[in-house]
């Protein structure tokens, strides 16, 4: 070995790796909103990550202390704007619980139908954009094609595509006529074979599996410790779904499965498992809609016991529903007036994203995008 070569070799042995701070966001395509992560890197490896949130904060909870219960409903639409029906439902149920009113059966069926359709639309967006984050653009177009069909149905029902303000305290805003119910039935028939199409396009794609399997592993203990819920928790192999475990509305009348991650492509709790849980949940949602459509009967679509300005009795209660991202809870304190004394919103994505630094530690820099995408965050409800 020549002297020069020897010198080079000894130099390479001494190469000290340097810690570098990498800023990602707040404007970054894969963060689905304004979300910032500061990543500490050692070469290509992430040693630590710190999340910064609050760029979309508008103090939803303070607004609700200043407007009456009915006026607050549209603000709940803007929390998780991808599944606004679920927010409306959670909020309406929290007020109804303090009022002790019975909701007519038809109203409850309509609520189930629109929430499950919403869940399908939300998961379609999650899956489509997740593929795009990782580099597959085609599945995104297919998912949006079908999401558009759901949004058209919801628009026919309530006149809005995203921020519905449809599920109201005491029932729903308008009745669904037979033509609308038929539209839902037709969509269910259309949608089932489409899931196979997504699977062929994305799920069994070798590159997609390589990018997601064994990446961002979240153990069941970590997930529970950090309060993760929804597909993030179920992806870690825990069977927990409030629709099944603590059935609200009419969910105890339907027959459906709760899909959990099983480490099909790699390890339990990796990005692929979370993705797969969402894919399977869409099929279960279709099953629920079909059963609801066959059971729904004529009747009133809202209760006449609630006035335009509801006044719940004094007290407090925490009410939770299973939203597309997990447990959406509203802690409501009423002082007996027509305005909430305090309304705390426990948003699922807030807790889900708080575990990000644990999942990023030890991952490659390029995988951070895959991990954030698999959490399916919506900044509207994290920042509130």
């Amino acid at each position, binding site marked *: 070995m020549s002297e020069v070569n020897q010198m080079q070799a000894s130099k390479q042995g001494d190469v000290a790796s340097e810690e570098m701070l990498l800023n990602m966001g707040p404007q970054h395509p894969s963060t689905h909103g304004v979300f910032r992560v500061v990543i500490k890197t050692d070469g290509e490896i992430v040693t630590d990550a710190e999340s910064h*949130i*609050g760029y979309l*904060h508008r*103090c939803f*909870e*303070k607004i609700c202390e200043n407007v009456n219960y009915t006026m607050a409903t549209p603000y709940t639409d803007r929390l998780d704007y991808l599944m606004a029906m679920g927010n409306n439902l959670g909020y309406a149920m929290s007020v109804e*619980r*303090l009022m002790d009113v019975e909701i007519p059966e038809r109203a409850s069926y309509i609520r189930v139908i629109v929430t499950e359709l919403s869940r399908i639309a939300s998961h379609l967006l999650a899956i489509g954009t997740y593929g795009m984050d990782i580099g597959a653009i085609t599945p995104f177009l297919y998912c949006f094609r079908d999401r558009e069909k759901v949004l058209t149905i919801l628009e026919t029902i309530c006149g809005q595509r995203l921020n519905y303000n449809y599920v109201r305290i005491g029932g729903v805003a308008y009745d669904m006529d037979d033509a609308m119910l038929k539209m839902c039935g037709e969509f269910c028939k259309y949608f089932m074979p489409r899931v196979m199409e997504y699977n062929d396009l994305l799920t069994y794609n070798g590159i997609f599996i390589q990018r997601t399997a064994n990446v961002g592993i979240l153990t069941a203990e970590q997930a*529970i*410790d*950090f*309060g993760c819920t929804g597909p993030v*928790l179920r992806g870690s192999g*825990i*069977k*927990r779904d*409030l629709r099944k*475990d*603590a059935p609200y509305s009419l969910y105890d009348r339907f027959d459906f499965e709760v899909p959990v991650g099983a480490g099909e492509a790699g390890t339990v709790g990796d990005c692929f498992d979370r993705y797969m849980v969402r894919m399977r949940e869409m099929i279960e949602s279709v099953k629920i809609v079909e059963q609801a459509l066959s059971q729904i009967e004529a009747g009133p679509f809202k209760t006449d016991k609630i006035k335009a300005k509801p006044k719940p009795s004094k*007290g*407090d*209660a*925490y009410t*939770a529903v299973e939203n597309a991202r997990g*447990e959406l*809870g509203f*802690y409501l*304190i009423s*002082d007996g007036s027509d305005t909430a*004394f*305090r309304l*705390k919103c*426990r948003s699922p994505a*807030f*807790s889900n994203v*708080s*575990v990000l630094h644990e999942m990023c530690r030890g991952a490659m820099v390029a995988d951070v995008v895959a991990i954030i995408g698999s959490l399916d965050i919506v900044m509207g409800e994290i*920042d*509130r």
Partner: protein
Amino acid sequence: MTPQDIASKLKAKFGDKIVAETLDVHDPFCQVDPMSIAEVCAFMKDELGFNYLRCLSGVDYMDKKKTTDDLGVIYHLGAIPDASLLFCLKVILPRTGAKVATVENVWSTADWHEREAWDMFGIDFVGHHNQTRILCAEDWVGHALRKDYKSPDEYHGIRNNVV
């Protein structure tokens, strides 16, 4: 385990640190001494199986007539996967110098929830490793969800409260 069982177990273990109990409401709860909340929560998790903190909320109890000006922290506990195991703990704090022990060592999810309660109510979580604002900007003044909060007239050249 009924709420009655849980309350009596807590009383047997902690005695007068359990200040009060109310069980005939929507969410049955015990009121706990603020500085003992961490021990009580650790007991709830390790011995009674509450492995999941569902929600941690700050509250300002000051009403319009100002009969009280206390602050509070409400802990809604649950378990995974057993969804029937539910209980609630409350602490009541004086408005000035509101201090409560942190529970972030019991459930990691409490970290961000406590930061939010500090940001919005100015409740000091003693022992928290990183008690900084989370939703508002770092240089924000005041705690927005307090009932006597007034929004600033100016923030970095942005005028507010202009009629």
